[in-house]
């Protein structure tokens, strides 16, 4: 019997050989010399056989020995998928290629709007889901080692150390194989070739053992069938619900397992290989499962009761003394385990690295100033560490579960775990309404139920307390892991799968219906669901002429027949081509796109050419949909803009009103302050002199008269001021009532001059031209006279000439009657001309009789009368013009 050392040597030699094959295949591939067979459907089909792991190799016999024909379900599920649903797989493969998908996590994330949250969630689910599976490989390899070790007298045998070394060894293999090549988009030709080789080794080994058992031990087909009939296996009843459930699980797992996705989608060379695989892979499964029942039956017969049926493939040849066959069988099991671990670790580490480690690392990096070091090193390291961590998880699971469970039971837990991805995956492929929120919610619910009803109970005490297992969560019996919602009596696997899958799918659908997908999700959804409309066939457009014809037809529609023909002829000549149409070279397409974009716009031209030339995977319909959405958003935003413009207009109006009010309030304050000042000044004189008159004893009669005269003058000044104020206030408030009467201008002027000059001490000569004053006017003649009096009085007060003279002249022009008052003084200084009509404006530093309200009143009056009063600069003296609407013609 082979010693452990020999066994270890054989393993190492076998792995070295595999490594060599992989290395060689990679070299061939990079040199472009890969043989045709390396890219053949056969290799693809064989690589799919990583579905058949140590579970299939060892566990199927054990499964058959324990549960009869039920093991068939494990093969039935994938076979049904391959035969009946290969078109669905083809869609998956097409999407994988057109979207450059690297893993199932990447696929789901990409479908649901490139959500990294979803990718990370799927990654975690996959890692947890696959952990029991890896543990299963560890357990089977350990068991097979142990079989040899028990018979090895030279060595003490320690199961724990074997498991550890098996785990470590597999981790090293996986790291060596899986992380040599960094670029996940590139296909791992080497690994796939090695996996295909291992597929042959495990099939050959199982067939050899089967042949030996049937013809060498049982003595022929007839004998074997008789033994089967005699054994319990043939008589077991078929449990319909378990069969259906496990077949479904196996089918779902076949699609969703990360390693299956890796070989089936990521490593796929050509989607037409699926057609071959759709019958060749079921055939492989048939071959590898053919001898399961015979081996199980013979094993049960030959070996002592209580021996592990999972190891019959190994123990039957050993018991029969067939060392060589046993070694081959061992290698077959080892192949199954290593190929699964390598590909699974590769797939999972890609997911962990891409969706968990790198995002975190990049975020940490961006917090620092710059990205330092080589990202490549970080990616490689993160993948290697991920592989080691995944293997460590498998190792710990083995320890937690005690390493005693049947292989098939462990495998089903894994299947149910990864099957939770199915609703989101299938929904994403066929239903445009599926949303990220739906996928996340469905996955969370399904995964949670799976953890609670399957994984944690399988791990036994410690993780899930005993009272929860017995009496349910929070003591609620309807929350017992084995009988959710009070449904009892179901097989635990059926129970868990039914609840997790149905609630997963239900929540996925409901949340998808209730949530609204982002534009990116919609676009991705359209591309996934209608992938065959958007992407080119397996080889793209076969005849470039056909493609160019399409371009020609499209161009004719857009440019017009003659112009399109001329353009294509020109291009053909430029290319020096012989054919009727130019070759669709990138340069030609670019020029065509520019030509078209002049007519239909750049985006549409790009989309149309992309549609025909196959360079773009976005259809015009998609573009239009996106454009529609953009238009809606634009409209919405322009509506918002209009609203906000309206709001800001209102705000501006309010601000203006507020400013006006503030200004008015300030003006009112200033006015009151002015009024106060103007009142206080005469009152000061009055008070001072009245006190003098009262208190001072010896005043001369002249002094008394003089002071009483001042008091009298200041009192008049006060009265005038108050009258002016009242007048102005009435005029400004618009409450003035005008007394419009007809009269002659001449008479009004006569009255004004005599009133203004009456009692005046300063001499003023008023020059008039009575011949030019013969206008009839219709106005408030008293008010008009008030204005004239004011202007004459101003000239009298302010004219600084030695012989003050005021010229009054009237004229009519353009429907207006103008009366001008020009004196011979120095006039109003230029900088003051603007303010003389303001209230309390006084130009001269000298004392003026009024309070500075006169001209303000004049302006108010004239505006009420429909005319105006203005200062005329540059007349040599102070000059004012009063304008009135001409009411009548010049009197005769």
């Amino acid at each position, binding site marked *: 019997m082979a010693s452990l050392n020999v066994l270890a040597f054989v393993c190492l030699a076998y792995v070295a050989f595999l490594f060599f094959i992989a290395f060689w295949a990679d070299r061939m591939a990079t040199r472009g010399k890969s043989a045709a067979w390396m890219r053949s459907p056969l290799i693809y089909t064989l690589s799919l056989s990583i579905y058949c792991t140590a579970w299939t190799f060892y566990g199927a016999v054990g499964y058959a020995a324990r549960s009869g024909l039920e093991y068939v379900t494990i093969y039935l599920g994938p076979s049904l998928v391959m035969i009946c649903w290969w078109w669905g797989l083809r869609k998956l493969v097409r999407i994988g290629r057109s979207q450059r998908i690297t893993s199932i996590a990447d696929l789901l994330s990409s479908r649901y709007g490139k959500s990294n949250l979803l990718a990370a969630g799927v990654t975690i689910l996959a890692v947890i889901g696959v952990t029991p599976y890896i543990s299963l490989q560890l357990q089977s390899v350990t068991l097979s080692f142990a079989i040899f070790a028990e018979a090895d007298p030279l060595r003490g045998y320690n199961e724990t150390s074997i498991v550890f070394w098996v785990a470590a060894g597999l981790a090293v293999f996986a790291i060596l194989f899986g992380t040599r090549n960094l670029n996940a988009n590139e296909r791992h030709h080497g690994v796939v070739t090695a996996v295909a080789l291992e597929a042959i080794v495990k099939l050959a080994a199982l067939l050899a053992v089967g042949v030996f058992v049937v013809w060498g031990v049982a003595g022929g087909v007839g004998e074997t069938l008789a033994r089967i009939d005699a054994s319990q296996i043939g008589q077991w009843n078929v449990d319909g619900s378990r069969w259906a459930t496990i077949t479904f699980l196996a089918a779902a797992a076949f699609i969703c397992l990360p390693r299956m996705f890796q070989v089936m989608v990521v490593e796929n060379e050509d989607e037409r290989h699926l057609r071959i695989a759709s019958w060749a892979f079921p055939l492989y499964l048939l071959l590898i499962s053919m001898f399961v029942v015979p081996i199980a039956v013979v094993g049960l017969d030959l070996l002592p009761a209580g021996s592990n049926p999972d190891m019959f493939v190994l123990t039957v040849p050993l018991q029969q003394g067939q060392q060589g066959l046993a070694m081959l069988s061992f290698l077959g099991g080892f192949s199954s385990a290593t190929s699964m671990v390598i590909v699974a670790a590769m797939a999972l580490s890609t997911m962990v690295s891409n969706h968990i480690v790198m995002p975190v690392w990049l975020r940490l990096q961006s917090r620092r100033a710059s990205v330092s070091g080589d990202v490549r090193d970080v990616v490689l390291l993160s993948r290697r560490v991920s592989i080691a961590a995944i293997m460590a998880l498998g190792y710990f699971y083995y320890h937690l579960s005690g390493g005693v469970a049947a292989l098939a039971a462990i495998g089903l837990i894994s299947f149910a775990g990864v099957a939770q991805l199915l609703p989101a995956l299938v929904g994403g492929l066929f239903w445009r309404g599926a949303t990220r929120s739906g996928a996340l919610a469905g996955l969370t619910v399904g995964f949670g139920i799976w953890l609670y009803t399957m994984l944690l109970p399988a791990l036994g005490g410690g993780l899930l307390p005993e009272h929860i297992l017995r009496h349910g969560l929070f003591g609620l019996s309807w929350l017992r892991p084995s009988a959710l919602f009070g449904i009892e009596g179901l097989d635990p696997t059926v129970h868990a799968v039914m609840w997790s899958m149905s609630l997963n799918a239900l929540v996925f659908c409901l949340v998808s219906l209730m949530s609204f997908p982002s534009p990116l999700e919609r676009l991705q959804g359209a591309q996934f669901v209608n992938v065959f409309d958007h992407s080119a066939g397996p080889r793209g457009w076969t005849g470039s002429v056909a493609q160019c014809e399409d371009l020609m037809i499209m161009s004719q529609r857009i440019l017009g027949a003659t112009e399109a023909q001329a353009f294509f002829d020109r291009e053909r000549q430029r290319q020096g081509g012989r054919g009727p149409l130019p070759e669709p070279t990138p340069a030609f397409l670019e020029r065509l796109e520019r030509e078209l974009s002049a007519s239909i716009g750049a985006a549409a031209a790009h989309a149309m050419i992309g549609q025909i030339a196959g360079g773009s995977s976005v259809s015009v319909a998609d573009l239009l949909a996106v454009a529609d959405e953009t238009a809606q958003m634009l409209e919405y935003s322009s509506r918002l803009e209009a609203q906000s413009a309206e709001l800001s207009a209102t705000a501006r109006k309010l601000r203006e009103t507020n400013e006006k009010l503030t200004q008015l309030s300030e003006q009112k304050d200033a006015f009151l*302050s002015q009024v*106060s*000042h*103007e009142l*206080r*000044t*005469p*009152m*000061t*004189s*009055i*008070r*001072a*002199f009245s*006190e*003098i008159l009262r*208190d*001072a004893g010896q005043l001369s009669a002249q002094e008394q008269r003089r002071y009483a005269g*001042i008091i009298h*003058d*200041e009192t008049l000044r006060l009265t005038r001021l108050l009258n002016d104020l009242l007048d102005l206030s009435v005029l400004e408030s618009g409450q003035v009532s005008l007394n419009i009467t007809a009269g002659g201008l001449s008479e009004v002027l006569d009255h004004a001059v005599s009133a203004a000059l009456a009692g005046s001490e300063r001499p003023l000569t008023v020059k008039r031209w009575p011949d030019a004053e013969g206008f009839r006017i219709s106005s408030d003649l008293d008010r008009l006279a008030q204005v004239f009096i004011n202007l004459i009085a101003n000239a009298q007060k302010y004219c600084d000439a030695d012989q003050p003279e005021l010229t009054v002249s009237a004229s009519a022009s353009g429907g207006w009657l103008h009366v001008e008052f020009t004196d011979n003084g120095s006039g109003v200084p230029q900088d003051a001309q603007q303010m003389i009509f303001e209230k309390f404006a006084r130009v001269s*530093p000298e*004392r003026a009789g009024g309070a500075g309200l006169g001209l303000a009143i004049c302006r108010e009056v004239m505006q009420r009368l429909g005319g105006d009063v203005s200062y005329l600069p540059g007349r040599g003296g102070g000059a004012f013009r009063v304008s009135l609407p001409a009411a009548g013609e010049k009197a005769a």
Partner: protein
Amino acid sequence: MGRHVVLIEDEPNITEAIRFLLMRDGWSVDAHSDGATAVEVIRDAAPDLVILDLMLPGKSGLEIVREVRAVEGLQALPVLMLTARGQMRDREMAEKAGVTRFMTKPFSNAEVLTAVRDLHAQAGQG
């Protein structure tokens, strides 16, 4: 100590009233109506007291006080400000500018005389 007053006031009737009051009280009064020349007048006359209107043509009373205070030797000169604008803010600004006492028009003659005597007495003690 002399009793010489410079009065800057643009309202002739008020000037006449104050001149009458102070002359009877034994002051010599030097009255001016223009703000623009007030600082020079005060500097040249070196009076014992200044009576100043706030609103003057040419230069405001506040400016005049500030400039007077900047002249060497006139920092302690008593300045009585009379104004028809009696708001709190005007009073504060006047005190800040260096006015010694602030009176609002219309005032009583007795008030003016008392203020003038007080200011003169304080300046004499100081």
